């Protein structure tokens, strides 16, 4: 059986952790005011 709760928790954690650097990457690609 698959532990769906842990998969959900790790997915949520990954999204939260990756969204911060994603802002920096998008800004650098769009040549924003870093």
């Amino acid at each position, binding site marked *: 059986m698959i532990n769906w709760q842990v998969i959900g928790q790790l997915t949520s954690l990954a*999204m939260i952790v990756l*969204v911060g650097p*994603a*802002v920096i990457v*998008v*800004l650098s690609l*769009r040549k*924003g*005011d*870093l």
Partner: protein
Amino acid sequence: MTIIVQLLVFILVIFSTLLVVGIPVTFASPGQWEKSKNLIYTGAGIWTGLVLITGLVNSFIN
């Protein structure tokens, strides 16, 4: 009713992620704020409505 709440929460998570990326990018892109102001205000309004509707619908499930 549970499936509706689950759907609303899923939409809320996706929409929140979009706003969390989009709003700082708009703030830090020169000249973009003037262009995207209305979009961001609308997005914030929809997000608030989604939170309230999700809370309301959630109170109807056991």
